[in-house]
């Protein structure tokens, strides 16, 4: 494929876990059927050894790369995935799926409950990161892949990669964990809770029963604004906005918007409402807060189950998932004699650094994957 050709992709759907073979969720609830929206890029080789599963973050979806027919905006990690890019679709078969609980084609609170013919709303069961991964496992089985070359993700995507490495240690050659924590800490839970409260205190939320009615747009927009602040850094906000005013020469001395940063956040909030379901935000943010690899054992004991290689990446300006949390994982992996590479990339973009066009991230990913495929072929 020539570089100039648009990389046109399509979302596909896979349904599994039909009763009586429902997925047993971590909470003990049996749940099914489950539909997963997914996209694939590149070709699976005859040995089925070049598959990479890419996992998305809180607000992501299956559309990680390329363009949907007629769209002007590419997928959320198009800077990294595509022909000739770091995760090179000329070499690798890339799979990206929307998590359960999501709202972009996978079964979630906005999906219709086949038993009632109405959207689940809050009757949707609580799902965890482990549950998301268990559902993905069904998709990977369906695609006939026994061992993934890599499971890769940033933020919540990294949590899923971690869960893969521990739940299905023999199903992956490597785990690529970017801007991730082994356990949501109090501050991370706190931000998520403020975002959830913003949604739940919107009168239009209606205990989650708003489908077909007015959506809790104000609450979800505020939730997104809070989230967005935590994904940036002091430095990146100062550089982007400073105290620049919006459409005026002097302060207004009223409660209309004065600053560019205000209007930017409002824009991000309002546009998010068009593409994301408030209940999905509640469910997925809760799954992140429940994520705790150290719940029952020490991190060293937990990683004793892992078999894959690990690449851990953090960013200097990420104050939401700070480097010390990555280092904690690196230490526990080393204690288990596992192959681990770790780098803290100097970046001013905060937590979202992995999503922006970052030549260091691309460099690390392409070379790391080259090494992992070589080891795999050598075995």
């Amino acid at each position, binding site marked *: 494929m020539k570089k100039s050709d648009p990389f046109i992709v399509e979302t596909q759907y896979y349904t599994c876990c039909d009763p009586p073979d429902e997925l047993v969720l971590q909470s003990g609830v049996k749940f099914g059927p489950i539909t997963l929206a997914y996209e694939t890029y590149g070709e699976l080789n005859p040995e089925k050894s070049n598959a990479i599963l890419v996992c998305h973050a809180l607000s992501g979806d299956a559309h990680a790369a390329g363009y949907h027919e007629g769209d002007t905006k590419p997928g959320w990690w198009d800077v990294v995935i595509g022909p000739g890019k770091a995760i090179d679709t000329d070499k690798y078969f890339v799979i990206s799926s929307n998590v359960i609980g999501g709202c972009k084609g996978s079964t979630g609170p906005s999906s219709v409950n086949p038993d009632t013919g109405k959207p689940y709303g809050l009757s949707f069961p609580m799902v965890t990161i482990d549950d998301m991964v268990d559902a993905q496992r069904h998709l990977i089985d369906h695609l006939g892949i026994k061992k993934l070359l890599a499971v890769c993700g940033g933020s919540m995507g990294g949590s899923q990669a971690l869960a893969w490495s521990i739940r299905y240690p023999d199903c992956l050659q490597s785990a690529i964990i970017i801007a991730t924590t082994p356990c949501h800490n109090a501050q991370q839970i706190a931000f998520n809770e403020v975002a959830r409260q913003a949604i739940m205190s919107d009168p239009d939320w209606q205990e989650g029963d708003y489908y077909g009615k007015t959506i809790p747009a104000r609450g979800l927009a505020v939730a997104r604004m809070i989230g967005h602040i935590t994904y940036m850094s002091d430095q990146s906000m100062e550089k982007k906005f400073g105290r620049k005013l919006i459409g005026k020469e002097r302060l207004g001395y009223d409660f209309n918007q004065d600053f560019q940063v205000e209007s930017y956040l409002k824009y991000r909030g309002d546009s998010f409402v068009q593409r994301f379901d408030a209940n999905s935000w509640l469910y997925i943010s809760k799954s992140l807060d429940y994520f705790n690899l150290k719940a029952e054992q020490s991190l060293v004991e937990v990683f004793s189950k892992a078999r894959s*290689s690990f690449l851990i990446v953090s960013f200097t300006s990420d104050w939401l998932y700070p480097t010390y949390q990555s*280092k904690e994982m*690196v*230490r*526990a992996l*080393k*204690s288990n*004699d596992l*192959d*681990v*590479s*770790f*780098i*803290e*990339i*100097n970046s001013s973009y905060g937590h979202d650094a992995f999503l922006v066009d970052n030549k*260091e991230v691309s*460099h*690390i990913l392409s*070379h*790391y994957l*080259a*090494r992992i495929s*070589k080891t795999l072929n050598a075995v």
Partner: protein
Amino acid sequence: MRLDYRIILDYVSPKSKVLDLGCGDGTLLSLLIREKSCRGTGIELSEESIYKCVEKGISVSHGDLDSGLSDYSDKRFDYIILNESLQQVLNPKKVLIESLRVGKNIIVGIPNFCYWRARLQIFFRGRVPVTSELPYEWYDTPNLRFLSLKDFRYFCQENSITILKEVGLSQNQIISVRPNLFANNGLFLLTK
């Protein structure tokens, strides 16, 4: 190939597990992996060097040497290499003692601050030495510790560290006569 690398390759038995502390751009590690079939990993502080290591397909950890060893269990590695890095750590004694815990053998490469040219500069010019091997001014040197080959031998003796092999080097040749005076660098193979 650099002479110190050649000697280190000679010290290391094939198929060993090696940890290179301060592995730089990973040149030595890739030589050990390629020529001696070693399994190797490194720790390096410089972000730029980390990218070069990853490019070479080496598994490497970003961090400082003073805190990088505590994660490893006893005698995890056959060899720990501290080539031109020991003089740059904050607490060299602790790093060495920790290395001897984690590794069966330690290879240490140090610049010799009592090389004759350095001695002459101190004696005749009354200046802190700046030589081709020690090219830094006092205000920009990464070296935190200044020692001679003799100092290092005394240190080993005092800490009951066995020197298995030792060699002095200068301008890509081995210095066998009075290395503490005529060698720019020293390489030591140690065990405890």
